[in-house]
């Protein structure tokens, strides 16, 4: 340790590591797991109604025009946050099919009464089978399904006001 230059080595090493970490922090990162199902037809499913007011959901419902498939649950906080956006999409004439994950009929009814009901049908996915089959990793998630039942686009997380336009554009593309 006689050489005074040696004393600067720790600082130099640290500077290198810090630079590297700083560089990595500024890089865009894929935060989300994208479904490998994009471009694939929906898997076969037929779910019973999630509550008494609306019919259940099945693969067969996705014909004729593009629709949104919204995966949600009454116990999910971001789902409350995205409720107004779903209403806005409905107002634009978009048909939204809901799939309620691990939910109870009374909670679903409660949620819809409180936050509005943008859905035309809601299927009850009590064991996440459909959710897993279409490659969704959490709630809420929204898929654009085209007129032939093919998954065209996946939106992970809640739909914020700025996403509404984007989803409408994706629906337009899927025509």
């Amino acid at each position: 340790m006689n050489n005074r230059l040696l004393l600067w080595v720790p600082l130099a090493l640290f500077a290198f590591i810090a630079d590297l970490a700083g560089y990595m922090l500024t890089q865009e990162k894929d935060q989300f797991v994208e479904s490998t199902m994009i471009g694939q037809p929906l898997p076969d499913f037929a779910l019973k109604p999630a509550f008494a007011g609306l019919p259940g959901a099945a693969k067969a419902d996705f014909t004729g025009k593009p629709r949104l498939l919204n995966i949600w649950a009454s116990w999910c906080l971001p789902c409350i946050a995205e409720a107004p956006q779903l209403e806005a999409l409905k107002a634009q004439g978009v048909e939204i099919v809901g799939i309620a994950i691990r939910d109870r009929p009374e909670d679903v009814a409660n949620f819809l009464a409180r936050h509005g009901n943008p859905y035309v049908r809601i299927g009850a996915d009590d064991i996440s089978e459909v959710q897993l089959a279409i490659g969704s990793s959490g709630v809420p998630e929204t898929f654009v399904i085209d007129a032939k039942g093919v998954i065209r686009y996946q939106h992970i997380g809640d739909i914020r006001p700025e996403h509404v336009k984007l989803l409408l554009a994706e629906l337009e593309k899927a025509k």
Partner: protein
Amino acid sequence: MIAEIGLAALWLAAALAVLQMISGAFALKAGEGEVNPLAIYARPAAVVQAGLAVLAFAMLLWAFATTDLSIKLVATNSHSMKPLIYKITGTWGNHEGSMLLWVGVLALSGGLLAAFERRLPERTISATLAVQGFVALGFYAFLLLSSNPFERLPVPAIEGVGLNPLLQDIGLAIHPPTLYAGYVGLSVAFSLAMGALLTREVNPAFARVMRRWVLGAWVLLTLGITAGSYWAYYELGWGGWWFWDPVENASLMPWLAATALMHSVSVLAARDALRTWTIMLGVLAFSMSMLGTFLVRSGVLTSVHAFAVDPERGAFILGLLGLYIGGAFTIFALRAGAVAEGKRFAAISREGALVFNNVMLSAILAIVLLGTLYPLVTEAFDVRVSVGPPYFNPASAMFAVPMFLVMAVGPLLRWKDDSPKRLKIEAMVIAALLIGAIALVSFFGQFPFLPLLGLGLAAALAVAAFLPLRGRALARVPLATWGMVLAHFGVAVSLFGMACEGAFTEERLAAVAVGGTEQVGGFSATLQSVTPVAGPNWTALEARLAVSEDGGEPVILTPQARSFWSPPQSTSESALLTRWDGQLYAVIGNQAADGRWQIRMWWKPFVTFIWYGGLLIALGGILAIIGRVQVEAKRRRASAIGDERRAGLAALGAEPVPAE
């Protein structure tokens, strides 16, 4: 109100950290042996700051215990239906809460230092507290400006979203607080090192004060790592006990540095050697704690249990790191040249062995650091790689093996200068054990090289650990020596467990129909049923496995595949059957199309010794602390008596006897 009290306490604590920093810094304006009158506020500021930080944490704890859903952090991380224990542990099972815990422990250790440490020159303590206040301030700023744990929701949530099910485990109640206390205990070592460097008081008295904090932090780190490893072992359901995961490495790196520091600070305390090296390790150990926190918290690294956090926070922590670590190493580079190296010693001596082990530990640290950061380097060039056991195991073994060998002999050497001839018999015993154990095991079968070497080393080390007691009156051996013996023996025990797990584990992966039987390592397991069961916030498929050993009475094991519904996630709960000589580890997987269940079983001989060893190492550390405190108390009593005598002699007009 609760959240507002917590937030106010946090702001006040930050203000006091500023006072502590400025007041303490005045100490540097005074000459050696003097105290600047403005420096006297550092101690009270540190004590009150500690109280306020603890208060803030208590408020958050209260909010979580009562599931106050008007607080954003509670709403996003808790749920009213969660069992109370997990509501409480949920306080620190998230980013903001764990950072508050971190700051709380930091302030508390600063407060303890301020309240009780009276042996160092006041000037050094003030400088140390200034550094401690500076460190705390950065983390208060981080909490208050970018991670406020007390943020309110505009409208209270009707229900919380839950807590990551992986974290709903008793392991989480113990693991992070222990680890954090260890991390942050090293902050005191860091501040002391900087304080001593700034006031040029790097000497044995300083080392004795620092040693206690290093030992304490090291014991807590050891316990935290041991608990974390066992948690990963039974909770993740993967059957392994160490994955070289970035988050695991984040706690291993400060431990390696702290282990080196603990040995080097002992040399400084006992022999007044290794001054610069000890200061360097003091800075390095806490730097590794902070770097670990950064890597885990910034989202820069991906890991099974890293906490995804936005890059803005990452940038903030990186800024803090630059300030603290960069600043400390700059001061080190500027000042350390002025610190005399201390007493000289021969290569073959107790000091020599300790230096060797220090270098080996640092080399292992460098290897772990390199392996952890390497994926980052390649990612910068758009290549994604993951570095795993194939790199870490042999690379770290390359330095661990010589370290274990020297560790067996080191404690037998004399201070300052020794000759290898004196230890001829001991060295031969150790070598014979090493070779004998390897020969014996390889005779019984084909085993991979590393576990085999591990077994031989474990045998040699186990015996060598007790050699320092040879020929001594056991009742008069100092407690600190017992601590060392026990800790070194613990290393042997852990090493034995690791080697056995590596060499003798038997694995069975089978598809079993209900009623079917599978064999693994002397056990036969019959799948009696698979039934749904429900917990407070999860449902699960539970298998009943009737396990019997050599046709004896069957024991029922119940591994589960759990589904949590808030947030939805599946986990695998392993079932363990513990015998003194190992564990049977069972996991249930998916159901195949034909109705059979995937069952995975491992027989892991002596795997539990890995964690028993960890506990022994920590126990050794605790004994060493108690021993040091006792010796210190005795010395103080003796010097008080000496003072009286000198005063008495002076009164009689006699020549004063020089102290010590």
